[in-house]
């Protein structure tokens, strides 16, 4: 156990220092964007590296949510409150990106539904939802 602790302690210290730096005043203030980019790239990877069609759609969803998060973080004003008019509140966060994303979430679900319907249809036509197997079947039909 001691060996394990001594291994993790410097790591933990480094992480805490990094986090404190990123969240402090005067830090680059771009950390949230970088996490969002990491999320977006994870979604992108799922879409291009996997053959399973359902998983591709899940990847698209991850990508979508990361774009939504990007908009919402841009709308945040430090010290601001939710954009609902009330007495005694001076600073509101920007309501416009919220509206855009509200619309985008619903449209995203509509496209997801359409994609999943296509997956079901492909499964009925080919008997598989793996991209490479479908391609093999197609090539077999052409030959």
């Amino acid at each position, binding site marked *: 156990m001691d060996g394990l602790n001594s291994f993790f302690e410097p790591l933990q210290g480094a992480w805490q220092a990094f*986090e404190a730096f990123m969240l402090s005043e005067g830090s680059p*203030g*771009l*950390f949230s964007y970088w*996490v969002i*980019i*990491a*999320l977006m790239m*994870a*979604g992108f*990877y*799922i879409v*291009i*590296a996997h*053959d399973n069609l*359902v*998983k591709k759609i*899940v*990847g698209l*969803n*991850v990508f979508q*949510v990361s774009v*939504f*998060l990007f908009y*919402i973080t*841009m*709308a*945040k*004003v*430090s010290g601001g*409150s*939710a*954009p*609902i*008019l009330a007495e005694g509140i001076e600073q*509101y*966060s920007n*309501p*416009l990106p919220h*509206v*855009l*994303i509200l*619309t985008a979430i*619903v*449209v*995203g*679900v*509509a*496209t*997801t*539904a*359409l994609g999943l*319907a296509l*997956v*079901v*249809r492909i*499964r*009925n036509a080919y008997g598989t*939802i793996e991209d*490479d197997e479908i391609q093999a079947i197609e090539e077999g039909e052409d030959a």
Partner: protein
Amino acid sequence: MVLMLFMAAMAIAMARVRDLFAVVMLSGVFSLTAAAIYVVLDAVDVAFTEAAVGAGISTVLMLATLALTTRAEKASSDRTKSLPALFVVLFTGAILVYGTFDMPHYGDKTAPIHSHVAPRYIEKSGDEVGLPNIVTSILASYRGYDTLGEVFVIFTAATGVLAILGRTRRRRRNEANEDARPATGGPAADKEGARP
């Protein structure tokens, strides 16, 4: 911030796990965490839309698809595809990170996004529309055409889904009839085929 890192971990787990049921469940939790982050970032309307629509309806749709297709992802994924993909992803990510260096910092009051129409909405919408919730005012009044367009998109998607799936069912029914006719023949087969 911690929630965001949690989401990143979940996204990676989603890429690794092969059981599609687990993947769909993870994506539901992912959406719900996103909703929690929206609350932290003052976007309460977006948060409950995400929780209801993103985490709820999407998950149900995906589970329905799994029920109609298959649950397990094929085990043998070829390594030849994932390495170039990883390279492309890292390259794109690096370019995007480079792009963020010109972005306004998180929470900055003077960012360009806060200086065009947004202040007008915040100052005038209470008098002009009369609703306390500015997001609702913009959605239904100032940007009503956006919402109308959204309705068209949903209508088109619903029509598309019905066209795709309704056709399958009809075709399957016909096939069932053709298969059954030589064996049993007559109206009994038709009746059986009518209920797929």
